[in-house]
């Protein structure tokens, strides 16, 4: 987790805008229905003089109506055939290409917020909390026993909506016209990687008029606090408490899938296309037994009861560098925190997925749970144990898969922060990305661009990373983190290169080199690029 968090922080840090880059924040109205044509505003910065919109969504047309420094006015037309879901949109101007801002297509009819608007099922209300502390209040007429699901989706992660359902309080001695809180929802579970959208399901006991309020967490509000509110009849399934696997390949996430081809994926990312290992054997956990787990092998089970412990036996004939990988296919952190430990025949702990270190400010012991750990196993008999970190929690969906395998050197996650490139003729731009070298992966890696426009050349660059001394009291950090490597490429734009009328989409390719041969890419990423005039 420590490593992950550090990674997230570095990505966020690197996303810092270049000074001149135009930036979009939030669209309002946030959602539209297929077949609709409507006007919307997009808040942001450095937006003056933007002249066009860029989007690649079938069935969607959008045009820019006006632009000021902090706001765009646009018109969106949705064909009836357009699919529902989250969409992206960018804007283009002499200052370059903006980031992609999210907006949504929803199947329901939409309407704009207005004071005391009566909510209707299967409708979506678009609103914005334009000022800090603003609260939008809607009315709701309900029948006794009627169930509702309210869902507030925000335009940006920076705005975190909160839903409160109110009922009349005629019994209130202070004011018979007052309302009292009936239900409240911020997000289902506040935890990194999970949505902060609010979602409230409630069965109304008595017929009558209710109120639903949307506010921002801790009084947040502002022009970018745009949201849509969906009202549904009935209790919709609870939201996912399980983050979706990230779009980029991340072997250190508890939610990545250790599928039958996982070992093949690892070999491929090590530049070895030819090795096609068979799927690892699967061994089911049993509360009363300690089955033998071959290597490679997947040990899987469910911590269905509190304090349950599952065990498997291991036997090694020869010393082997091994990796333990853990997947939580259903419930995951922070509800289910699987602790995997390997004990030798004397009961001594040989390995665990918990990284323990000491905080150098006070020498407190700190512990971080990891989805992957590597270590060396000498010949002998061992016991692998799986349990939840707390003794009080166990549920049928506390499912785990623990893969024990020999180490496979491979290229891990690649982090490339830029989501667009606005380049100026005569100037060079350094692009830095990071590659994780997993399990002693030592082969060279090549990074390059294809499809660059004329006048733009890519050159290898040398990074000048900050050299950090090894942390004291860091425990056996090498077991829990890959070796990160930073690469730099330099894009140079020749003088006189024509300015772009529209973005082009060159591809960043990253390929391992194995035994002198270029292996297939482990990353192919299209990045929109524009050549823009130098800022005056």
């Amino acid at each position, binding site marked *: *987790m420590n490593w992950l968090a550090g990674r997230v922080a570095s990505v966020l840090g690197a996303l810092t805008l270049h000074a001149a880059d135009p930036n979009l924040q939030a669209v309002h109205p946030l959602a539209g229905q297929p077949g609709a044509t409507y006007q919307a505003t997009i808040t942001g910065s450095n937006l003056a003089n933007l002249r066009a919109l860029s989007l690649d969504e079938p069935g969607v047309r959008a045009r820019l109506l006006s632009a000021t420094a902090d706001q765009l006015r646009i018109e969106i037309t949705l064909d009836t055939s357009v699919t529902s879901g989250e969409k992206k949109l960018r804007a283009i101007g002499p200052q370059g290409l903006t980031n992609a801002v999210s907006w949504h297509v929803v199947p329901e009819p939409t309407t704009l917020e207005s004071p005391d608007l009566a909510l209707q099922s299967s409708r979506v209300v678009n609103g914005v909390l334009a000022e800090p502390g603003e609260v939008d209040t809607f009315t709701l007429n309900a029948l006794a026993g009627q169930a509702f699901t309210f869902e507030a989706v925000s335009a940006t992660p920076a705005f975190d909506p909160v839903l409160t359902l109110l009922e009349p309080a005629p019994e209130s001695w202070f004011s018979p016209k007052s309302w009292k809180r009936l239900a409240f929802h911020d997000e289902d579970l506040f935890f990194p990687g999970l949505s902060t959208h609010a979602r409230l399901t409630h069965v109304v006991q008595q017929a009558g008029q209710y109120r639903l309020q949307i506010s921002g*967490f801790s009084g947040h509000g502002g022009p970018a606090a745009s949201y849509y509110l969906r009202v549904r009849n009935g209790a919709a399934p609870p939201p996912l408490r399980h983050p979706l696997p990230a779009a980029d390949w991340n072997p250190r996430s508890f939610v990545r899938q250790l599928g039958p081809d996982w070992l093949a994926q690892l070999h491929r990312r090590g530049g070895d296309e030819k090795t096609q290992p068979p799927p690892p054997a699967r061994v089911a956990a049993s509360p009363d037994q300690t089955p033998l787990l071959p290597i490679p092998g997947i040990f899987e089970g469910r911590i269905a009861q509190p304090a349950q412990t599952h065990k498997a036996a291991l036997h090694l004939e020869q010393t082997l560098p091994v990796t333990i990988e853990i997947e939580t296919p259903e419930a995951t952190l922070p509800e289910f925190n699987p602790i995997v*430990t390997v004990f030798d025949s004397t009961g001594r702990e040989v390995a*665990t997925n918990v990284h323990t270190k*000491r905080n150098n400010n006070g020498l407190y012991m700190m512990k*971080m749970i990891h989805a992957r750990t590597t270590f060396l196993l000498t010949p002998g008999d061992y016991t692998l144990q799986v349990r939840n970190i707390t003794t009080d929690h166990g549920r049928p969906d506390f499912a785990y898969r623990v893969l024990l395998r020999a180490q496979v050197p491979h290229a891990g996650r690649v982090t490339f922060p830029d989501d667009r490139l606005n380049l100026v003729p005569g100037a060079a731009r350094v692009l830095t990305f990071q590659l994780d070298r997993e399990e002693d992966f030592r082969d060279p890696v090549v990074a390059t661009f294809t499809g660059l426009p004329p006048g733009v050349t890519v050159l290898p660059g040398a990074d000048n990373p900050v050299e950090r001394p090894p942390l004291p009291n860091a*425990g056996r950090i090498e077991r829990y983190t890959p070796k990160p490597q930073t690469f730099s490429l330099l894009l140079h734009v020749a003088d006189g290169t024509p300015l772009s009328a529209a973005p082009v989409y060159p591809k960043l390719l990253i390929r391992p080199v194995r035994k002198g041969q270029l292996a297939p890419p482990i990353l192919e990423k299209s990045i929109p690029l524009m050549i823009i005039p130098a800022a005056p």
Partner: protein
Amino acid sequence: MKTLLPFLLAAIAYAADPVAVRLVPATFELHREGAAQQLLLIAEYPDGSTQDLTDAAQWSPNAPAGLVTAKANPGPVQVTATHGKLRATASGRIETAAGPAEFRFRAAIGSILTKRGCNSPACHGGVKGRGGLKLSAASLFPQDDYEWIVKGGEYQVLSAESKTPRVPRINLQNPAESLLLRKATGAMPHGGGKRFAVDSPEYQTITNWIRQGAPFGPPEDDTSRVAALEVYPKILTLEKNQKHRLLVTAVMANGRREDVTAQALYVANDKQIATVAESGLVSPAALGETSILVRAAGQAAAVIVGVIGDPIANYPTLPKSNFIDEHVFDKLRRLRILPSALSSDAEFLRRVCLDLTGTLPPPARVTEFVRSTDPKKRERVIDALIATPEFTDYWTFRFQDLFRVALFANGINAKWSQMYGEWIRESIAKNKPYDRMAWERLTAQGYDGPTRHFLPYDVIGSPEETMAEEVRVFFGRRLECAQCHNHPYETWSQDQFWGLAAFFGRLFKMGDTGNEYVVFDHPLNEGMGNAEVNGKIETLHPRTKAKLTPTLLDGRAVPPSDQANPRKPLADWMVQHPYFAEAAVNRIWAEFFGRGLVDPVDDFRSTNPATHPELLARLAAEFRRNGHDLRALMRLIVTSRTYQLSAETNPTNRADRVNYSHALPRPLLAEVLLDAIGQVTGVAERFTTTVTASGKVTQQTPSGTRAIHLREPDLFHSRFLDLYGRPNRLALPERSGKANLGQALNMLAGPIYNEKLAHPESRLQKLLASQATDEAILQDLYLTALGRPPDPAERQQILTALSTQPNRSDAWKDLFWAVLCSREFAENH
């Protein structure tokens, strides 16, 4: 007031004869030759009062001043005391077959050290001892005391070793040269001065002990270990010219009782009220109430002493609503205090609204309530208030205070303080039994609301601090002193403290980034990587460095298990312990009376006795019987006549601050005061968090957010709230309620008062704009702010004064300001 006058006028001193006498104790046993038992002759008078006539009685056979001593004639004995025509008899049994009592260090030497104050907290019984000698308070740990005296050495707080080479404090060859005796007799300089003379019995006893080789005697067992100390009477009322002996009994672990009156040390808390002699004879000094601390045999107890005035003839029979009144009024009768009259409807309504909901009653409700002739209207309004959303809001606020919901107290993450705060809110809204709330917090594991309580300042709190807080909140006791040393004022030992702390010794958090902490109890038998940093999970005794096993205060060790939450046995034990219910009811009581039956509410100890111990016990029993139902407890309290007494006093109860004879005006809590100002001015406060350097507000509470709604005091800033005592909740809140200069300046020139009054949307400005008459505005102001209409004299004076002012708006602003600054507004009374 008028209703009391006949009684006051009829209050005359009278000297009635006793109607009965009895001996205390009525039965006794003396088990060793030389053992003694003090008997007291207690006379009972028609008004229910009692008097100690021990010294005035004639005793037979041979029990001078009621003291019976076992000699070598065993068997049953009848002791009779005669006073005038009245006679009382006590039955005793004397066993002397075993001869004199076996020598024991604690009984023989420790009792001298106690009686002479040597082991008192102010002397060698203090935290570090004095002059290198450390003794346990009242000889609670005689083996330790013995070694420091016989082997010598200098005590160290954090080590069991002597700081200096051990030099015995006694001289076996020449007892008179013993440091112990020379210091105590003043033969050499002694910070504590002379404690006894060379020819005193104490000197002789110690000298003989040294001559005999300074034995310790047999180890402590159930026949010698004192389990409790009982003092008769627990509550003593004395007339100005009376005296009363105290009778102190040690209850041994085997149940046997021994009279230790002569060995006890007596200390009066307030000598201006009463004094106590070495023998335990209490003498009055002035009208009032104090307590006397009694120490003996390692234990401590206290006696409440009330020095009462003249008898009140025809003391009225007071109406009682429930058992609270029975206990309170019975004591008032004994103290010869007349309670105030029942509060007026307006006085009651404002008080009960503020106490149950933190909200002023609306003017229309005041009028309606005062006009109502429904005899059950008070009960009805109580039930109505308990059902209001404001009740949930207010008690959520009170428990968020006590349970410390704050940004920095809950992991420095506003989402986490919200999770914790919402858990409290749900508990209050659903009237979750209080024992369940406590249990959930004590045992919290994982990632849910109450687990965030264990993350002060982003780390897991230390076991000792965590345990001390839980004990203080749920047991109302302060064990912190015992962290570094045996508790100087109580019988809590350092071992007990650390045994309890060990329940929290495995508490740990998983995570490092500040966003994902999962709270768990670290298994004992798994390292989980500890070896990688040479770490261990264990709680060590700070002095002995011994590994600690979780141990309940009663000495029961709970063997640790990796398969179970170690805090569950602790929580099971705590919520069923008598301390739990009595601490809870005392805390809630204090919310309604401004002081606890034990006060401060989290300072239960034998030396800080309850003003009404039987009432406290009965409330606790009722609370348990009702399933720890907080609402039922509150209803019980506010329906009592005691709660509903007026704040207006009479001559007999004017000085009373502790017996609930009248309502004590209490300053409104900062949050309630600010909300009340908002109610009266009609301008609610808006609270903001950090404001950017450019002055831009990025977070602001929604309109209508009250101060009592603010979850994190360290997130939403308010100069006003800080000035008026809002705690930051980074430690257990202690609100003093005392006025300060900042408050005065704020009243004069602060924005809260002045800007709200001048606000164009204020209640005043709207009233003025509506062409309301001065009389109507005055009526509205009084009803809103004070919960009552102005009385005719006030109305006349104010309207006259207003008519002379050149600027009507300014004059009204001044009047509103004056009302808001008045004690009547700023206090609950």
